[in-house]
């Protein structure tokens, strides 16, 4: 009798049955994940359209879509807006505010700590589109709720500052993740080390640089990679501004949607999607590299999902 290998095939599965168990999941992944990725590459090389002649009989056009996109000022502006958006809302906003919160709550939070964490966490639990509309309502129009509260009439957020609006939205709903991750990371910093530094007269920036940073470098990298990837791929800002006015908040996901599905240029949209896919690949490879060798629940789970 063939002895099952190491992990003791306790259930008597055997390789054949094991494959049968894995197959349904793999089939679904193959059809709805692997195949679309490959198909996007092919479609990006064609002049495929939603309607008209090229809908029935798309032709291969080589790299026309790519040169077309690179020559399109709207694509370049979209790329630039996306950089600003990811940099402002994820890197500076979510990670920056998240770290500051984690740090302040840990060092000076006192009895308020749980309450503040709870409130921030709630912003993460609320469905994304609800948060989108929440901010839409708050920022909408001259006499919107936020202007009334801040006593800043005439500051038309969505119309005059569309990028800033979606940045505020993304900071609000995404900071919780960074805050929790940094809270966990700061547990790795022994309080006695901080105390020693403080007694030696180190200022807060010095403490952060010399004591905290070296110990949580990995967490910072993990955090930045994940939230940048999620923000970069998120379509929800569409709910607030639809990319407008005049494309001034048209980040890449919205740009792809407009080109491919609203203007019906499927081939051109697919080409830009493929560029996004490549950028995602860089982020994901970097993340998996960080992950390798230490599969801790927390980090694995973090891979589970972008705030949809």
């Amino acid at each position, binding site marked *: 009798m063939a002895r*099952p*290998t190491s*992990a*003791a095939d*306790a259930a*008597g*599965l055997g390789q054949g049955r*094991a494959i049968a*168990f*894995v197959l*349904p*999941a793999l089939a*679904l*992944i193959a059809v*709805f*994940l692997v195949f*679309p*990725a490959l*198909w*996007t590459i092919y479609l990006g090389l064609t002049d495929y359209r939603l309607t008209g002649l090229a809908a029935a009989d798309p032709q291969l056009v080589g790299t026309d879509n790519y040169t077309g996109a690179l020559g399109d000022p709207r694509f370049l502006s979209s790329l630039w807006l996306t950089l600003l958006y990811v940099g402002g809302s994820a890197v500076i906003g979510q990670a920056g505010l998240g770290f500051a*919160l984690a740090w*302040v709550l840990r*060092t*000076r939070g006192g009895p308020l700590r749980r309450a503040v964490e709870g*409130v*921030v966490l*709630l912003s*993460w639990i*609320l*469905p*994304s*589109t*609800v948060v989108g509309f929440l901010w839409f*309502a*708050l920022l*909408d129009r001259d006499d*919107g*709720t936020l202007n*009334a509260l801040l006593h800043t009439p005439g500051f038309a957020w969505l119309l005059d500052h569309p990028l800033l609006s979606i940045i505020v939205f993304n900071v609000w709903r995404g900071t919780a*993740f960074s805050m929790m991750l940094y809270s966990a990371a700061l547990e790795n910093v022994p309080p006695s080390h901080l105390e020693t530094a403080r007694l030696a007269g180190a200022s807060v920036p010095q403490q952060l640089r010399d004591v905290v940073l070296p110990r949580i470098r990995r967490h910072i990298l993990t955090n930045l990679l*994940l939230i940048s*990837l999620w923000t970069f*791929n998120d*379509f929800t800002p*569409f709910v607030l501004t639809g990319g407008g006015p005049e494309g001034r908040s048209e980040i890449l*996901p919205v740009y792809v949607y407009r080109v*491919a*599905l609203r203007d019906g240029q499927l081939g051109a949209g*697919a080409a830009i*999607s493929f560029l*996004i896919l490549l950028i995602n690949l860089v982020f*994901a490879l970097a993340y*998996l590299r960080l992950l390798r060798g230490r599969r801790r*629940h927390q980090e694995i*789970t*973090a*891979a*589970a*999902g972008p705030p*949809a």
Partner: protein
Amino acid sequence: MIRRTVGRLAATVFIAVVLAFFTLPMLWLASAPFDDTPAITTSIPEFTLRNFAAILDNPYALGSIRNSLIQGGGAAALVVVLAALAAYALSRVRVPGRDVLLYLLLLLSSVVTGTAAMVPIFELATRLDLIDTHLGVILVVSGGLLPAAIFILKDFMDDTPTSYEESARVFGATPLQILRHIVVPLVRPGLATIAVWALASVWGGFLFQFILLRDPAKAPGSVILYTLYTEGGAPRLDLISTFSLLYSLPVVAMYLFVSQRYGFRFHGGIKR
């Protein structure tokens, strides 16, 4: 001494500002549905339940919550069952190339996003006749969630001892029986985590639902929000806020329930 006082003051101000930033929108969400004129909060809100009645009158509002339940529940069930089967096999049997497979799956799931696969997914759904069907949304979303779900569940299963399974096998239980009666109860927290995560993903999800469903009678709540406008094209803030509140409550309740029952801490990406 002075530095300490300044530091404490700065920290207090910081916490107050952050608290206001996060609390005010929630207060709006909690109060606007009961407000007669939710756009202008400078006046004292005039309490009313009329907005809830108006939501019930909307032809798509209640139906959209049912649609969200069908799509979210369907995806959660599919993901939990398929991921449990796959994770179990991958955890217990040494399939050649297993680690590479898992690595590739995780890589793929973060690379192939809605934004990157919008066109082919739309195409695929059109050709498979899945446009305007709940099944289309369920399959597409499940395909995206499965890799991470398998990964997480495998971790849970690796942590459970195999001795019970061995004895059950001695008594003649089939692998499926063993999985159902022995392994599933052991990894229930993991399964609950995955189910909540999948359901919440669909509940808040927008892009795929938006591009795959044209018929408003099939649209989930996350998309129906987008249609609550006046005839003149202005958003109906009274309806939007009321519906937002109704639509959020189940997810928040589910989180509270599951985290209390199974004690899963807030880990990273476990929200959608």
